[in-house]
């Protein structure tokens, strides 16, 4: 079932259809949800996925973060806690656009969005909280956010309201 869905999506891309990235992300969003529902019993990441697609690239980055060992930054950083990895993993499939994903040396994972006009949205996942930082039109916002509010915040950010 997963193979059929993934193949269908890939053939659309290979036909050189000039799709807006937002449309592609939207397809990715739907497929991601379906794939997730069919692989929910799998503890690890998704071996059948294609790393050329945004969601799959996100999973690959997260897997790399998962493999970081003590002193990964050369200045004594600890590995990223599994609880944080699982929280990030859970939210990725619900995002219509995939973020850039980076580990930090304070046991957190950072999801970043940045527009051409330098508007910026960031979610930093800690063990016990998620912090939002946003810069739009030169104004800053920084506060705590619930994991369930993140997909909506991303939509708002790109909708410009």
């Amino acid at each position: 079932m997963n193979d059929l869905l993934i193949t269908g999506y890939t053939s659309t891309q290979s036909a050189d259809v000039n799709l807006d990235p937002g449309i592609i992300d939207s397809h990715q969003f739907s497929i991601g949800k379906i794939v997730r529902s069919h692989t929910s019993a799998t503890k690890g990441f998704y071996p059948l996925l294609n790393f050329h697609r945004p969601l799959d690239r996100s999973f690959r980055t997260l897997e790399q973060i998962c493999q970081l060992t003590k002193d990964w930054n050369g200045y004594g950083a600890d590995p990223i806690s599994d609880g944080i990895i699982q929280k990030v993993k859970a939210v990725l499939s619900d995002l219509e656009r995939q973020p850039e994903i980076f580990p930090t040396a304070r046991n957190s994972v950072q999801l970043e969005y940045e527009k051409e006009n330098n508007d910026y949205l960031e979610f930093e996942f800690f063990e016990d909280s998620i912090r939002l930082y946003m810069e739009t039109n030169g104004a800053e916002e920084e506060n705590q956010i619930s994991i369930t509010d993140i997909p909506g915040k991303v939509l708002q950010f790109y909708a410009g309201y």
Partner: protein
Amino acid sequence: MLDTKINDSERLYKAIKKSIPAQWNERLDQPTSAAFKDSQGVSVDREGDRSDGEIIYSFKERFELRSVISITAQQCRDQRAHPIAKPLSDNTYHAEIHRSPDKIMLTAGQAKRRKQGFISWREQVRRGL
């Protein structure tokens, strides 16, 4: 022996390593602010009496580099961050940037703005790699 007081005009250099996953946003061709989020403070090297080339060479001896970025102590202080000398036994030029005199970790805003500050010198430094 370096003075423990860091003058406003002194530059602070940070090595961005060629690690996996990277601390460099390849799509935007700039460092991620995540590189400046460290529970021990942001690890940097002071300029001291050295040239860009000497500083880059000293980093290259220790790390595989993606880039070297820098900021002045004044730019740090303009963001209300606090650069402090933290010499190590094998690196007298070592320093850290803290949120304030009594807190270590930068805020998200400081890290992001810091990133923009570093960017202003990135290309000049990268040419030496």
